[in-house]
């Protein structure tokens, strides 16, 4: 008899992901599922998935789950958490969902200090609808709606979400991580765990921005996409903690 060293987490359904080759959504789904299992909160967890590539999250996560309108996941999560304060509520949102159409909902959920955990997947494009410019598209980056590259004069500037949320009082934990290599995947898992722990200890709103690869819409191979992420996305969106819970800050 061999010892089992690796298994599918209980919070993940036994179905294949629909994601494109080299897409990192699958890794992030798995990390969230692993954390839910490790924290032993599977039975009381309720997820809210967005509109975008992660819309099918309800097929992958095994917990109770909502599919929200585009950008509205934080409002839906607010309704759930207010109705059931002892449950663990998380949202999973892309850059268009959270930082464009849903900017109002996410800012106010943070300002209210809603005790929810938000996982914000930033791959700098709208994936599902065909690779259009996102609020996080880099200057000069070519997308289907910026075929000559994002021009600051015409398209404005990218939104740095963590920097912005670091000054919102109700936000207890704000961090940016990446999944472009194993070392960073481990760091991402730690950040996800912390976001859940902040909720469990009632400290307030937690947001983890996860830089993610979209080889299909970047027009790169999976390996090239990871390099592009490391060289370009991280340069504009530096990794690290932007806000940590007050109690912890005292001990630093």
């Amino acid at each position, binding site marked *: 008899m061999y010892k089992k060293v690796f298994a599918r987490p209980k919070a993940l359904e036994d179905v294949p992901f629909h994601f494109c080759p080299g897409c990192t959504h699958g890794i992030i789904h798995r990390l969230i599922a692993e954390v839910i299992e490790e924290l032993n909160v599977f039975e009381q967890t309720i997820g809210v998935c967005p509109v975008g590539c992660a819309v099918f999250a309800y097929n992958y996560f095994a917990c*109770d789950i909502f599919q*929200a309108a585009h950008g*509205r996941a934080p409002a839906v999560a*607010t309704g759930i958490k207010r*109705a*059931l304060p002892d449950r663990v509520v998380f949202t999973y949102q892309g850059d268009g969902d959270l930082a464009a159409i849903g900017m109002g909902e996410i*800012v106010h959920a943070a300002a209210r200090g809603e005790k929810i955990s938000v996982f914000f997947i930033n791959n700098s494009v709208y994936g599902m609808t065909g690779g259009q410019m996102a609020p996080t598209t880099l200057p000069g980056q070519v997308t289907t709606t910026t075929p000559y590259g994002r021009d600051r004069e015409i398209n404005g500037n990218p939104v740095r979400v963590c920097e912005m949320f670091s000054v919102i009082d109700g936000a207890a934990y704000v961090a940016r991580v990446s999944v472009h290599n194993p070392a960073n995947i481990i760091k991402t898992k730690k950040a996800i765990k912390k976001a859940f722990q902040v909720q469990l200890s009632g400290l307030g709103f937690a947001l983890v921005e996860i830089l993610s690869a979209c080889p299909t819409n970047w027009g790169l191979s999976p390996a090239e996409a990871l390099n592009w992420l490391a060289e370009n996305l991280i340069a504009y969106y530096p990794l690290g903690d932007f806000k940590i819970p007050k109690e912890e800050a005292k001990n630093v």
Partner: protein
Amino acid sequence: MAKVLMKGNEAFGEGAIRAGCRFYFGYPITPQSELAHFLAKRMPEVGGTFLQAESELASINMVFGAAGAGARVMTSSSGPGISLMQEGISFIACAELPCVIVNIMRGGPGLGNIAPVQSDYFQATRGGGHGDYRLIVLAPSSVQEIIDLVWEAFVLAEKYLNPILMLGDGLLGQMMEPVELDEEKEFFIPLRPWAASGRMGGPKRIINTLYIVPEEAEKHNFKLNQKYKEIEVKEQRWENYQTKDAQLVLVAFGTAARVCKGVVDYCREQGLPVGLIRPITLWPFPDKAFDYILSLGTVRYFLSVEMSTGQMIEDIRLAVDGRRPVHFYGRFGGMLPVLTDVVKEVKKLLLKEEP
């Protein structure tokens, strides 16, 4: 039972509390503000939650979350705010979640004004947002009826797992009337096995509105449509007032119906055979009321009296189906139909008098 004096907007709130509603999410807008003020005070007293959202987009999606998690929940707004909510209402209707939405109509289109109108009739009775769906629409015409119908609204919402829209206007919301409050009835919250409230050892629940496979989407639309057909058969509500021998039947709801009751009384004193059909459900529209009156054989004309340029008249024409002429009298933009003007219209038709 003692009578108390209460504002229409407050009556929506008190009615909701008595019906066991413990969650309210909303955004300020005139002329429904007193509803929010009232619940901001009352909800904490009964251990409920009142939360002011950052927009109507947010408040209706908070309703979606709370309803999907199993709560008895309500929101309210007016004109522009109800327009913003349409995306969320479409999602709630598709996901088949129970909730109550109050629209205290204001003048429009655009920012309009805060005076009483009934020009959101089309939006209310045709679903309002995108997709093939219906809301049950209840139109009270007095403060007492508000209290009674809010209870009914939650019962219907949970019976059919459908959002209920209650339609009032600035006049109904703002005015005070004596109401009789029963001893508080015991409310009952049925089990919600469909609620995504955390598995807690049970099966997985998904609150979803995405049907990417056309065959599945058609199946879901069919299921919704079967429900709407059942509602059309079972839930039509209206009031007949002096219709038995009426040759001219006024049709009006809400505030306009109050004016029309006065018109009927005045005309009857003058020996004019006038009656009133007051739809209480605007959807389903009370077709049966018209079939019944036409079966009596006395009616010669219908006259739709609305605080709009003529919206409900389309449903009346569908119900009458060419069997009698249907005429229209309306005031709009926040102006009210007055008794003498409606009487003039009545006389034009019944006595062929030109004013």
